[in-house]
C-alpha cells in the first residue's frame, strides 16, 4: 500500500455509517447532528447558591439550589449539570461525565465527631455498567494551619483524602470531596449573597 494512503486508510477504517433520525421538518446541514439539550428546570430566583470547583479541570462555577427534599439538596449549574448534597456531603452528581450515580455517605456529624465509618459509591464505567466501590474511612485532623479535618478513605482500588475546612464554631466552610475516578475531586463552598 503506498505511503500516501497511510493516513487515508487510517481515517477510512474509522469512517462512519450514519443512522440518523428524521430532522423535525427543518432543512439543516447535519454533520455530526448532536442537538444540544436544554436544562429541564431552573432554580428559583434567590435560591441559595454554592461555588463548585473542579480542580482537575481548572473550572469554577456557581450552582443554585433546585430542590430540597428528604434531606438532600439538588444544586444545578447554568448548563443543567447537578450535584446532590446531603448535609453538605456529596451523594450524587449528573452531567459531569463519569457521574457519582448514588452513594452512601456519612453524616457531617459523624465526620465532625471524627468517628470511623464506611462509604459506598456507585458509578458507571464506559460500558454503562454500574460499579460499586466500598471505602473504609477514618477522620483525623489535617496537618498544617487552620481547622481542617481530613477523611482518609481506602478502597481496594484507591486511597482518597477528603478535606473539610471548619470555622471557629465548627461549621463546615469549604469541603474537598472525591466524586469519581473520571472527575476527581470537587470543592464546594457556599456562595455568599450580595
Amino acid at each position, binding site marked *: *500500500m503506498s*505511503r500516501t*494512503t*497511510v493516513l487515508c*486508510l487510517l*481515517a*477510512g*477504517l*474509522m*469512517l*462512519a*455509517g450514519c*443512522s*440518523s*433520525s*428524521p*430532522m423535525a*421538518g427543518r*432543512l*439543516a*446541514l447535519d*454533520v*455530526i*447532528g*448532536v*442537538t*444540544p*439539550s*436544554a*436544562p*429541564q*428546570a431552573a432554580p428559583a430566583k434567590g435560591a441559595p447558591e454554592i461555588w463548585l470547583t473542579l480542580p482537575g479541570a481548572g473550572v469554577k462555577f456557581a450552582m443554585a439550589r*433546585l430542590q430540597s*427534599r*428528604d434531606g438532600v439538596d439538588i444544586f*444545578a449549574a447554568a*448548563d443543567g*449539570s*447537578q450535584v446532590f448534597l*446531603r448535609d453538605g456531603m456529596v*451523594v*450524587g452528581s*449528573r*452531567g*459531569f461525565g*463519569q*457521574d457519582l*450515580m*448514588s*452513594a452512601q455517605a456519612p453524616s457531617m456529624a459523624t465526620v465532625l465527631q471524627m468517628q470511623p465509618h464506611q462509604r*459506598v459509591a*456507585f458509578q*458507571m*464505567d*464506559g*460500558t*454503562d*455498567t*454500574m460499579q460499586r466501590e466500598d471505602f473504609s474511612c477514618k477522620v483525623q485532623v489535617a496537618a498544617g494551619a487552620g481547622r481542617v479535618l481530613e477523611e482518609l478513605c481506602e478502597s481496594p482500588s484507591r486511597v482518597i483524602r477528603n478535606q473539610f475546612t471548619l470555622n471557629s464554631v465548627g461549621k463546615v466552610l469549604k469541603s474537598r470531596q472525591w466524586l469519581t475516578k*473520571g472527575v476527581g475531586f470537587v470543592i464546594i463552598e457556599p456562595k455568599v449573597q450580595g
Partner: protein
Amino acid sequence: MTILKTLPAATLCALMAQTAQGEIRPSLALTGVTGLIDMPSGDQQSDGMLSFSKSLFGPIGRTTLTFQITPRLSGSFRYSATHNWNDVYAPATDPTAKFDTYYDRSFDLRYQLTKESKYVPAITVGLQDFIGTGIMAGEYVAATKTFGEKLKLTAGLGWGRYGSYGSIGAPFGARPSVSIGQGGNLRLGEWFRGDAAPFGGVEYAATDRLTLKAEYSSDAYLEEAGLRHTFERKSPLNFGLEYRSKRGATLGLYSLYGSEIGFSVQILLDPKRSPTGGQVGPGPLPVRTSAQAQGWSAASVSDGAGLAAMRDQAQAILGKDGIVIESLGLSGGTAQLRIRNTRLDNVPQAIGRSARALAYVMPASVQRFEIVPVKQGVGTSKVVIARNDLENLEFAAGQDAKMRARALVLPVSGRPAENALRGEGLYPKLTYGISPYLATSLFDPDAPLQANFGLRLKARYDIAPGLFLSGSATKKLIGNIDGSNRPSNSNARQRVRSEAYRYADEGDPALETLTIAWYAKPSDSLYTRVTAGYLEPMYAGISTELLWQQVDKPYALGVEVNYVKQRDFDQLFGFQDYSTVTGHVSGYYHFNNGFQAQLDVGRYLAGDVGATFSLDREFANGIKVGAFATLTDMSAAEFGEGSFDKGIKIEVPFAWLTGRPTQKSNSLVLRPLLRDGGARLNVEGRLYDTVRDTQQTEMDAAWGRFWK
C-alpha cells in the same frame, strides 16, 4: 471490494482524546497483534479493547484491526501489501506474477492459556492467517513475564512463517505446502506442522510513555526476501522504540532485519473508558412527590381538556430530551405514557426521564406509571413503575438495582387504549433533512482506498401510526470511486452484489430508497412488517417479515420473505431483467454476558441456499463488534476468490464518543471481498433490530442509566 456509504465524523479525534492512565499497557507488534516488533507475545489486551494498527517497513505495509473478544480470546483482521512483488521473480507458472503489489487479507485468533501471575508467565497460543490464502500463515506459542516494574521478557516457539528461520526440527511432522489458490479455507492439517523455531525478545518501559524493544525473529520471509528479494533480510535482530502520546495513539520507530527502517501507528479504543467519562449536559428533572403533586380537579382528570393539558405539560418537559409523546391515557390510578425516544441513546434513561415527567404532571391520585416505548408506531414493551418507588429511591445508594427489582417489564399491545389521548401533530407529518455522506471503496487491489463525497436528502411522511412513506437520494459532489479498473469476474449465476462498484459509479444522482412501510403487532409477542418500493440501491420489490419476541425472553424467532427485482446501475427508476424470491428463517439469542448470536437460514439473492451465522460482542453503551460467515450451496468455483462470504462489523455510537445524547452511530462492515454468494437483501428497519433494545434482556444490561 467493500463499498460503504458513510458520514465523516470526528471519531478519530474523539478516540485519541482517551488519555492513558499510566499503566504499562501491552503494545502491538507490526502484525497488529499484541507482541514485540514482528513477533507476538503472550500478553493480551484488556477485555473489549478494539485496536487499530498501521505499520510499514521496506516494501511491507500492514493494517490490522484487533478485538479482544473475551479476556482470553482475541481476533484480528489484517490487510497487508507487499510492494515490488514481481520485480525479481515472476515466472509464467506463478498465478501472482502479474501483481506489482501483492495484497492479502488474513484473520488471526489468539487464546491466552494462562494469565500472568507471580511465578507463571502469560502464555498465548495463536493462529495467524488461519483462513486466508496462506501467505501470512503461522502458528505460535508465546510466553511473557514481567520482571519488576519495567521489564518484560518474551520467549516462544513458532510454526509456518514463525518456524522458517533457525528451525529446531519439526516436532509434529511435515507441513503441507501452501498453494496460494482461492484462499478462504480452514487448513486444519497445517496447524503446528512443519519446522518449528524459537523466537523471543525484551520490552523495557523507559518512562511512562517510552518503551524500548528488542527481539530475535524466527520469520525468514522466505517468499518476500528469499524468493522475491523485495527486501534484504540481513539479520534476525530487530530493535524499536515506541512512544505513547497523551492523546492515546502510540507511534513506533524500528530497525528491522538489519536493513530496513519501520514505522507504526497504534490506536486503542477501550469501551470501558469513554472519551468524556459518560454523558455530560443537563441532569434530569428532580422527582416531584405526591405531596407536592399538581392539584388537578377531579373533573379535569376525567375530562378531555384536563388530559390534554397534562399531555402538553409532559411534552414540554420531555421535548427537551427529544422524547415525543405518542399517547397519554388515564385509567383509575394508572397513567400510561407511550413515548417515541428520538435522541437518548439509552432506553432505561428515556423511561426514567418519562417517569419523572409523569411525577411532575400527574395528580396525587395517580400512583402507577406505565411507560411504553413505541417503535415505528407500535408499542414494544411496558415498564411499570410505582410512584412511591420513584420518590423513595431518588437518592438511595444502589438505586438502579433497587428500582429494577421493583419495576415490572410486561408485554403490551401495539396500540394504546381507545380512550387514550394521542400526541399532537404526529400524523400526518413530513420530516426531512440534508446531510453530507462519504462512500468508500476499500480493498480494490488497484486502488485500495477510493471515496465519493456528496449530499444525501432523506425524507419521511408519517401517514398513521406504523404506516409511513420514506426515501433517500444522494448526489455526488466529488470522488474517485471508479470500478472500471476491476470489473466483476464473478462466475455466479447472477451478479447480485459483485457489481456494486457500477452502482456507485453510475448512481449519480441516485435514488437510494423510496418505500412505503407498514408495521403492526397482531398480538403481544408478534410483530409484522411489510415494506414495498425501492428497498435499497440495488433492489426493489416487496419485503415481508414476521417476528416472535416475548418481552421477557432473550431469544426471538423471525421469518422474512421478499420478492425483488434488480435495479438499473443508474439507481433511478429502471430495472434489469433479474428478479428472485429470497427469504430466511432467523433465530436470535442475546446472552447475558453481552454476546448476541444470530442464525439465518434460507435463500439468498443469487438463488443459493444456505445459512449465515453472526456473533457480536455488544456493550450496554451501544458499542458492538462482531463477525459473520455465510455458507451456501454455491460452489467455491462459482463463488470465486474467498470461497465463502465473511466479514466483521463494528459500531461505535456517537453518544459514547461525544458524551452528548444522540442516536447516531458510526458503523463499519468490512467484507474482505464482495461476491455474489450468500448475499442478503439490505432492507431498512428489520423487526429484531427495531424492537430489541426495548425488551427486558437489553434493558436490564442498560439499566444503570435509569436515574441519569
